[in-house]
């Protein structure tokens, strides 16, 4: 469905009517179901050890172990052939690495319940037992085989030296790795906390100019048109409530568009017929999940940079459609000739904020694109359609 929304001449007609919204099915927003998609970047638990069952982690372990094996092979004084030596060490160490990963994979759930020091000690003990058992098995296997006369020089001959050396090396490597995991985890926690607080700070930002001008309009209306003033106060309150919300919970497209209209009603009071908004929103998008406050700031930008500085005003076009599996929302406004007029800063901030939130929520599939051609400035949001 496509509809065009021309701003009515409210200065003459007086009170806002409820048919103001272009689509009545939209003006009663469905309450967004409580649903958190990836907006909170924190994983399920906050344990510092990564998940060793994940295929990527297994690959990492194999690589690390192989590098270590290479180091040991290189460090050996001459004697046996290098490649044989490498193969021998690799075989043993890969077994060691994979069994250790398996042990951590299965015990992670229990380890996560312990305090950090207790978890460290337990993980340490697990890995030490693992290496001791594996060394013992290897040694026994070698002795068994050599007793039967099968190639003896592939296996260690000195029992206790072999065992103690392995335990020593494992202890050092484990200590280093645990330390590394712990620090990396702290770091990522820190980064996430910072991103979250920045988003909240940006979200709560309302242009002071908009706020004070709206107050001024309301002050004027209180005498000339009290019922309009009353509605304007309610609109402003709704807008503030939305921006003050502490969570980054997504809402439905219909609710986000309702917020846009609330905002536009206030701007109309100030700008009168200088502002025209055309809506070309596909009806099928109304149930789509949208990170809240992603479209309204685009409108605010369009009006602030594209309409307000223009003597005769202009038209903002908001369109939305489904493009494959993606929702595509575009907002366009005329480009103003900034020569001698206001060069208005602040555009970047809002766009960066939206870009950051979309990429936090959808990764590579959440995108913001900006183009400028034929005298119009266009911002396009793209993100996966979800209901």
């Amino acid at each position, binding site marked *: 469905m496509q509809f065009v929304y021309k701003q009515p001449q409210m*200065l003459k007609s007086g009170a806002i009517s409820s048919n103001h919204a272009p689509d009545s099915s939209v003006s009663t927003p469905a309450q967004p179901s409580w649903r958190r998609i990836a907006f909170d970047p924190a994983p399920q638990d906050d344990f510092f050890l990564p998940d060793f069952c994940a295929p990527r982690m297994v690959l990492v372990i194999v690589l690390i172990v192989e590098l270590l094996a290479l180091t040991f092979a290189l460090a050996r004084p001459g004697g046996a052939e290098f490649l044989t030596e490498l193969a021998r060490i690799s075989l043993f160490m890969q077994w060691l690495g994979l069994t250790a990963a398996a042990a951590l994979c299965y015990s992670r759930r229990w380890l996560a319940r312990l305090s950090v020091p207790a978890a460290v000690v337990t993980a340490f003990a697990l890995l030490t037992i693992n290496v001791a058992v594996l060394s013992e098995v290897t040694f026994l296997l070698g002795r068994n085989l050599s007793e039967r006369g099968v190639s003896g020089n592939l296996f260690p001959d000195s029992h206790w030296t072999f065992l103690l050396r392995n335990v020593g090396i494992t202890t050092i490597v484990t200590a280093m790795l645990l330390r590394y995991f712990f620090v990396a985890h702290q770091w990522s926690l820190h980064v996430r906390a910072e991103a979250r607080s920045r988003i909240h700070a940006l979200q709560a930002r309302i242009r*002071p*100019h908009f*706020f*004070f*001008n709206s*107050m*001024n*309009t*309301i*002050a*004027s*209306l209180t*005498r*000339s048109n009290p019922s309009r003033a009353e509605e304007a106060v309610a609109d402003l309150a709704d807008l503030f409530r939305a921006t003050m919300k502490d969570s980054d919970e997504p809402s439905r497209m219909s609710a986000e568009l309702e917020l846009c209209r609330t905002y536009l009603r206030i701007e109309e*009071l*100030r*700008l*009168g017929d*200088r502002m025209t908004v055309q809506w070309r929103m596909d009806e099928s998008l109304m149930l789509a999940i949208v990170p809240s406050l992603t479209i309204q700031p685009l409108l605010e930008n369009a009006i602030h940079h594209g309409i*307000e*500085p*223009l*003597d005769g005003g202009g038209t903002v076009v908001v369109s939305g459609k489904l493009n494959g599996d993606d929702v595509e929302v575009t907002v366009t406004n005329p480009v103003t000739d*900034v*020569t*001698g*007029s*206001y*060069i*208005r*800063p602040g555009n970047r901030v809002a766009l960066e904020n939206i870009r950051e939130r979309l990429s936090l929520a959808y990764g590579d599939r959440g995108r913001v694109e900006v183009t400028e051609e034929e005298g119009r400035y266009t911002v396009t949001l793209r993100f996966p359609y979800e209901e």
Partner: protein
Amino acid sequence: MNQPVLQVLIVDDEPHARERLERLVGELPHCKVVGLCGTGLEALTRASELQPSVVLLDIRMPGMSGIEAARHLSTLPAAPAVVFTTAYDEYAMEAFDAQAIGYLLKPVRKERLEQALRQAGKLSASQLKLVAAADREVAARQHIAVRVRDELRLIPVKDIQFFRADQKYVNVYHAGGEDLIDASLTELAEEFSAEFSRIHRSTLVSVGHLEAVERDQDGKHFVRIRDRDERLPVGRRQVRELKRLLTLR
């Protein structure tokens, strides 16, 4: 007892803001609204016509900003006093405080309005120049005001081909002829650095009106301006900068 009536001109692009100021001024004793304007340009023509004693001037308006309008108003023979109104312009407010220029914050309080109107004074061009420089959101002027006899004429900056310094004054050459203005070339070069280039100690040329750079037999460079016959000499040091500008264009 017989206090003269203060004639007030209200300038604001928002109708409700104008309406409210009109009502508040109307309620004050010895004050009378003589006109309402929606743009800076309108304010300039109405001001010379109505000769108000005070202009209530919004800073942010489409087209000509309030600060630019005030700069042009200050060149009028009977320049009115100016009180700026603003919703929120940090830099401008700081500059007003520094220059002791009166301003009102919107929504305006009646008592503050009365006080500001009573204390309103004429602003000098130099005061306003400092304010314009401090207000980072307002860029260069869009017009240059020229006084022709007692009349104020505005030359759009985009019509200006070049400025040439001539002892104490600067000559403005534009599509509609040439005029004398009271300014320094250095200040103009700074204000219009985005569109004009200094090609000589005494000449500032609009990059948009440049046609070509030429060289004569002696190796001296000249600039040709579109729709003009004369050739302007280029200073030795400015040649390279000028060539860079032309390749960029």
